[in-house]
């Protein structure tokens, strides 16, 4: 192997403390060195030309550059090598500036170290293997999981860029929590008015395939090449026959056996139902657990009234497999339930607030439904217990949130705002009512947010009391709310007619399960982790899987929508070329010596390692070995250090290369 050594002065930056000509001179005598020189600015055009000419002239196979940090100009010199016909991975840099001339004063000492650094690089380059960038094909179709505002926005953005979208929603309709909201802060515009058009757009978009009442049950593959299995649960309605006339629902005799979860259990729904009138798609679902047909084969009222013959009691769950190139996870959140949880749960529930015993102690979403014009009270504020208009209402913030004793240390970020909104809506509707808010801090950082909260206090005369409530109990039809105003230092007791708890936003119970299905990390609560909290906020650490909305942490609609569009554009960037290029620094298993212990599989942070069967000529499996998926591996090398039989090598950093550097030390 013929190696060329190029020592750069970096103006005087290196040559001030390192005797560059001497280094070049000494190195010329090292074994394998064919050519050695020094120059004022190696990275300049003449410098690069110097390298290229030397390579061609001396028929060099590899080069070592003694210059600044590889983080600075590795790419420059690799490109120079390419133009001279050398594989770019046969270029090594000795860091003579940042890690030598700039950090030592003594010329002799620095020169000596420089020589040693070049020697190490030389030993490494001798063992370097030519590598080529890995290319992966990209399937230009995206899977969006979750049909809340996050999923809707992301799906529309990707689809409008011209790519196919598969949107999977587990409920019978898309819309998520936003469809339940009455009006939205800070502008108080009607949630359904701004959401419904987008839901319809999704439904009608030629590039979007919508799977409602469906779940993703399996994901295989890697960036650009995922394969997802989707389970479409049986609705017992033949989709393309149903016209959404609603006759079946009207006529179903089972009216009061199940709570309507869209109405947050404040109303009932029939056995055949759509979650809400504007549902998309507007196709009902039969709830097998309460439908008479499934109990005793009788009834069949719905079949009788459906003139489209859309009802099919025998329909079964169906599975679909789809090839996709990227995934956006947008599964949203749920609310902390103050009811006591089973002992296994980290969430402890609020015994002091009655563990959900009192019917007029409700949560924020229930209040949204009560305040919604399309809700169970047609927008009139009434108590769930007796339908009376509450004259005194108490809102309590940070319920569940910021309460380590109940399992959560974080702030839910949106409840300060929606509580101010609730108090305002209440005051707008009940003019002679009194509204109290117990808070710890007001977190209203956002455009027009602080002004919004102040408006509640100054214009709508909502009484804010700083302090947490200790207890709620019922006495003579009133809810006694015991608090303390910590600013005045005085106990405060309110005999309220209704209490609204701003409960924490927490992940869905099945969020960790979905994370494991896809292979993305999540925190101790079940929120999905971003690759970097500041610089890669919408990417998961798994390449090709992006995050949007409240599945990552509590957020409001503006943040959710920005994230969704950001995630969509990340996916669009991925789809902008037919093939992905990746650095070839990946690990590879030597199948002959792999023992099949799979310790490597356990430690790989990216799940890149799979089990591979080795078969004999008869096709009989005689051993299992590790197999590293080059599309997934990120080249950290953790597996190489773990493997006891030394069967894994990391390209560009293999043991031989490192040992050689050690030996040259």
């Amino acid at each position, binding site marked *: 192997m013929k190696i060329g050594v190029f020592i750069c002065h970096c103006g005087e930056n290196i040559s001030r403390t390192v005797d560059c000509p001497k280094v070049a001179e000494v190195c010329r005598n090292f074994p394998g060195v064919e050519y050695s020189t020094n120059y004022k600015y190696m990275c300049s055009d003449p410098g690069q030309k110097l390298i290229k000419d030397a390579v061609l002239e001396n028929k060099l196979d590899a080069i070592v550059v003694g210059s600044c940090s590889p983080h600075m100009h590795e790419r420059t010199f690799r490109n120079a090598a390419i133009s001279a016909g050398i594989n770019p991975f046969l270029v090594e840099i000795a860091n003579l500036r940042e890690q030598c001339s700039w950090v030592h004063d003594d010329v002799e000492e620095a020169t000596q170290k420089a020589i040693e650094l070049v020697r190490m690089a030389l030993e490494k380059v001798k063992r370097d293997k030519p590598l080529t960038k890995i290319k992966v094909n990209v399937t230009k179709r995206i899977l969006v999981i979750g049909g809340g505002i996050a999923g809707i926005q992301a799906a529309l953005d990707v689809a409008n860029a011209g790519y196919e979208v598969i949107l999977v929603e587990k409920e019978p309709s898309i819309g998520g929590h936003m469809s339940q909201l009455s009006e939205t802060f800070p502008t108080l515009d009607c949630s359904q008015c701004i959401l419904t058009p987008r839901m319809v757009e999704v439904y009608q978009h030629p590039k979007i395939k919508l799977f409602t009442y469906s779940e993703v049950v399996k994901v295989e593959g890697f960036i650009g090449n995922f394969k997802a299995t989707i389970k479409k649960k049986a609705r017992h309605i033949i989709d393309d026959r149903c016209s959404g006339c609603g006759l079946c629902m009207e006529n179903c005799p089972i009216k009061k056996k199940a709570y309507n979860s869209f109405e947050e259990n404040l109303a009932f729904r029939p056995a055949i139902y759509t979650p809400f009138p504007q549902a998309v798609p507007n196709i009902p679902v039969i709830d097998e657990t309460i439908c008479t047909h499934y109990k005793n084969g009788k009834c069949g009222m719905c079949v009788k009234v459906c003139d489209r013959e859309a009802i099919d009691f025998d329909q079964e769950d169906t599975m679909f497999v789809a090839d996709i190139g990227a995934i956006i996870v947008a599964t949203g959140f749920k609310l902390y339930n103050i009811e006591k949880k089973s002992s296994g749960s980290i969430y402890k529930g*609020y*015994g*002091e607030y*009655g*563990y959900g*015993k009192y019917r007029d102690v409700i949560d924020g979403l229930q209040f949204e439904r009560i305040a919604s014009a399309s809700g169970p009270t047609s927008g009139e504020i009434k108590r769930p217990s007796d339908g009376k208009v509450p004259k005194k209402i108490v809102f309590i913030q940070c319920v569940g949130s910021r309460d380590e004793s109940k399992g959560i240390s974080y702030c839910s970020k949106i409840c300060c705002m929606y509580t101010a909104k609730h108090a305002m809506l209440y005051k707008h509707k009940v003019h002679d009512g009194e509204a109290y808010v117990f808070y710890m801090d007001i977190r209203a950082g956002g455009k027009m947010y602080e002004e919004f909260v102040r408006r509640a206090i100054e214009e709508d005369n909502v009484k804010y009391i700083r302090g947490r409530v200790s207890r709620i*109990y*019922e*006495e*003579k039809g009133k809810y006694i709310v015991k608090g303390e105003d910590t600013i005045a230092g005085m106990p405060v007791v309110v005999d309220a007619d209704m209490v609204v708890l701003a409960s924490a936003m927490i992940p869905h119970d099945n969020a960790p399960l979905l994370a494991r299905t896809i292979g993305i990390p999540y925190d101790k609560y079940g929120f999905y982790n971003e690759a970097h909290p500041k610089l890669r906020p919408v990417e998961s650490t798994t390449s090709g899987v992006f995050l949007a909305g409240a599945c990552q942490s509590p957020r409001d609609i503006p943040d959710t929508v920005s994230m969704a569009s950001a995630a969509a554009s990340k996916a669009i960037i991925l789809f902008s070329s037919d093939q992905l290029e990746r650095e070839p620094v990946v690990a590879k298993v030597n199948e002959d010596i792999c023992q099949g212990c799979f310790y490597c599989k356990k430690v790989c942070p990216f799940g890149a390692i799979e089990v591979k069967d080795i078969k004999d000529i008869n096709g009989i499996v005689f051993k299992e070995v590790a197999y590293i998926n080059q599309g997934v591996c990120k080249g950290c090398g953790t597996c190489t250090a773990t493997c006891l039989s030394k069967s894994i090598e990391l390209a560009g950093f293999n043991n031989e290369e490192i040992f050689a550097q050690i030996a040259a030390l």
Partner: protein
Amino acid sequence: MNYGYFPGCSQTSSAKEYDLSLRKVFEKLGFGLEELCDWSCCGATSAHATNHKLSNALALRNIVLAGKQGIKNMVAPCAACYNRLITSQHEISMHPERKNETEELLSEKIPADVKVINVLELFFKIGLAKISENRKRDLNGIKAACYYGCLLVRPMNINNFDDAEQPTSMEMIAEAAGATTIDWNYKLECCGAAHSIVRKDIVLNLSKKIIDDAVLNGANVIITACPMCHTNLDMRQRAMKRKYPEHLMIPVLYITELVGLAMGMNVKDLGIDLHYVNFNYDEYIAEKLIA
């Protein structure tokens, strides 16, 4: 299995009837209790309020004795004693330095395997079925407000035999004994406890609120499992009556007395006649309140 019994100071004087009824009931249920020999005061509020080393040492001296007598399970019927004993045990189990300090004070090793339980737990150990089986009398005239007081089910990170905010174990026992129980709001509110002598005003006020809530929710008897609660709720009712003439007197029974009644023992045997507010079993059948 024999259980150790740590009576606590009140049990020998102002709460004699608690001691009496407890011994009788468990004897009849065929459950042996072995009194801890030479037990001493747990230190109660006064010790932990002013000197934590003293309070740990006084409480744990009894654990040392229990260890020496081979007692593995010990019932402490007074809620305050119970709380002191388990709190001290918990503290030394979590913090070895505190353990060493106390062992040095006592010049003894403190055993780690003595489990202290309260009376409610003891009933559950025996099994509620056993109570129902031994029922001889109908208590269905009794509408009981089960009063836990502040110390019995707190703090929950040490002891979680029952919920710290909405406990139900006493209700379950009372119902097993055939009484009806009511749902009410003050079952965990503090009665003022140790302020009984010095700040009678506080105790009077707090106890009055507790009693009023029980009455408001339809109770005709209050059940307790703590001598301090009993003193404050029972003994202070005369003063309440003087201060608030409209005050309705309501008898306060120990849970052991209630179970004893169900098992057919009579008022005198159980020491119920020692209470301030009279309890006349026959009148309960007629559902009349005793004024």
